[in-house]
């Protein structure tokens, strides 16, 4: 789960990470009021108006502007940014609508740095990465000048040690600002590590981390993703979630306990198990690529789904206007084939089945599942294998003249 920059900064501030003063704003009036308040608090007319969307690259897309003339100018900028379709390299060409702003104090910067924390899957450790190339995408730095990225891995028994933070500080050349700056950086790192652990962050990126002209270090940006598996111990996450940033169908699926990802194609898929669900997408594309046939979704109903969940899942596929055919592919383990069959039949009876349906059932209670489908009176094409099913799907879409 991702959160906005201003929320990320609130989380970091809780752990003692220095962040600039700022206030979120949902309307132009709120933005102007925030700018006024900031100017009086800091004695500085300079404020920054920042679009709050989950995607990165906001500055380059025109979503971050500096107002030198105080609240009036901040208002004008806010009018432009709030409501715009912000297009960045992470949003796709359609962009994301800006619904929230963050009004932040302007600062006198000496240098921009990069600082990030990730779970390094290969090392099985939390890794901190730092670079002097602040403001750049870290993937670009990693590809072009990997020697400019400094990395330390944290032993979970001892936690992040001060020497590791000092290594990064000296490696970044922070001594040129004096030993106070090095000490401030080490303190900031300790706070960050606590935040990563206690908040269950799967990714935390501060780009840029800035050194101010007075030698302070401060998080000028904050990008945080939480580990969804840890949701059970973070009640506060529910408030941080911005549903406008999520795909509505994926949200609906999540609420029903289903794993769903929207895709661009025209074949609805209902599968049990993540691996099999991905493989089902792959085989549809493999069989149908030349004919404009591709998966419309990834849907894993999981191992322990109830008949109600299966009904819900199948209903979601039936309601999608882009779906021209449906492939149900089940290899029952814990999941029993009769539960799937009953769910499919219940949803089809309620909503009507207007597109071809191909079903491949295998595994636990397969005979019972097939019997339920056969006796349902629905027009179902049975498939013997995944390949057979994929071919039947391609035939159904192309010969049915359902178009693309």
């Amino acid at each position: 789960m991702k959160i906005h920059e201003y929320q990320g900064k609130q989380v970091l501030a809780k752990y003692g990470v220095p962040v600039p003063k700022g206030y979120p704003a949902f309307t132009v009036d709120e933005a102007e009021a925030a700018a006024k308040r900031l100017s009086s608090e800091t004695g500085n007319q300079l404020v920054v108006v920042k679009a709050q969307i989950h995607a990165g690259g906001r500055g380059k897309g025109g979503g971050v502007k500096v107002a030198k003339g105080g609240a009036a100018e901040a208002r004008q900028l806010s009018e432009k940014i709030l409501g715009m379709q912000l297009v960045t390299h992470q949003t796709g060409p359609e962009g994301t609508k800006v619904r929230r702003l963050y009004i932040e104090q302007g600062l006198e910067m000496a240098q921009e740095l990069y600082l990030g924390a990730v779970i390094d899957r290969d090392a099985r450790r939390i890794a901190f990465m730092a670079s002097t190339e602040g403001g750049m995408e870290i993937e670009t730095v990693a590809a072009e000048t990997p020697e400019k990225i400094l990395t330390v891995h944290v032993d979970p028994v001892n936690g992040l040690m001060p020497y590791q933070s000092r290594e990064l500080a000296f490696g970044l050349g922070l001594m040129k600002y004096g030993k106070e700056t090095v000490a401030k950086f080490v303190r900031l790192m300790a706070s960050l590590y606590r935040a990563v652990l206690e908040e269950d962050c799967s990714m935390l990126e501060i780009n840029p981390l800035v050194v101010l002209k007075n030698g302070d270090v401060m998080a000028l940006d904050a990008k945080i993703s939480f580990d969804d598996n840890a949701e059970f111990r973070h009640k506060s996450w529910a408030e941080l979630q911005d549903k406008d940033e999520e795909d509505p169908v994926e949200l609906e699926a999540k609420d029903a306990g289903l794993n769903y990802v929207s895709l661009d194609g025209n074949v609805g898929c209902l599968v049990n198990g993540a691996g099999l669900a991905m493989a089902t997408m792959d085989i549809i594309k493999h069989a149908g690529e030349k004919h404009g046939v591709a998966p419309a979704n990834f849907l894993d109903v999981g191992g322990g789904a109830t008949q109600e969940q299966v009904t819900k899942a199948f209903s979601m596929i039936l309601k999608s206007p882009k779906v021209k055919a449906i492939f149900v592919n089940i290899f029952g383990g814990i999941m029993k084939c009769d539960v799937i069959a009953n769910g499919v039949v219940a949803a089809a009876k309620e909503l009507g089945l207007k597109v071809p349906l191909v079903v491949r059932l295998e595994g636990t209670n397969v005979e019972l599942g097939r019997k339920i489908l056969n006796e349902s009176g629905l027009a179902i094409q049975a498939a013997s294998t995944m390949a057979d099913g994929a071919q039947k799907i391609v035939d159904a879409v192309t010969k049915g003249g359902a178009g693309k």
Partner: protein
Amino acid sequence: MSILVGKDTKLLVQGITGGAGSFHAKQMIEYGTNVVGGVTPTRGGEKFEGKVPVFDTVSQAVKATGANASVIFVPPPGAADAILEAFDAGVELVICITEGIPVVDMLGVRRVLEAAQAEARASGAKIPRLVGPNCPGVITPGECKIGIMPGHIHKKGNIGVVSRSGTLTYEAVGQLTALGIGQSTCVGIGGDPVNGMDFVDVLELFQADPDTHGVIMIGEIGGGAEERGAEFIRTKMTKPVAGFIAGTTAPPGKRMGHAGAIISGGKGTAAAKIAALEAAGAKVAPTPSDMASTLKSMMS
């Protein structure tokens, strides 16, 4: 022979009185697995199904039963604790079925496990192993089933299967059995980003097992485990390996069901994994329907 589990496996079930634990404990007993005890804190002294003793702690259970393996059905908040309890009690093989354990918890588990493994290697003791979490388990057909896989689709034989995905393992096993080809052992290593046994660890055991003649390895997008497996195949493996990688059509940046199945920063794509396997001499099945036939074509 086989790897990891067999006739000599004496199994504990942690979480035996819970919904999933009790259901699958029954299924495992029915399959013929030697379930010697269960563990549910505060339920010690009870008998599961009238015969399997339940203990409060893993330590008590191991002392009383001589168990050498444990399977975990404990829900995510307590799962890492359950894994560590099992290792601390001296259990050699821990198989964690639980899905949804926070990754930070698994970092701690890995750290303890790695230290214990290093110590065992240095002293020549049996190396403690973790399979999973978020996995279907391990089965040696006809001998021992630990986990949640449907037992009846398996057939005793000489092909090893190792996979990050549960249902895709069943798919491969179903294809093998349909071709009349049996399996030595099938290992689900799980779909989480930080887990226990990796492809390399399992391939190493299959390579050393005289009764395993070939291997099907099933990977998916995310991480670098397949690439490390490919490197092992290239340098150490003499037995034929057929592979499949799920997620060729998966969009980047999206978690595809499994916590570990995500392409991030352009890394962990199916294309890169397929290329690594092919360069290592493995044959990658063009579709998931061809996993068994691809391996068959390599066996002479």
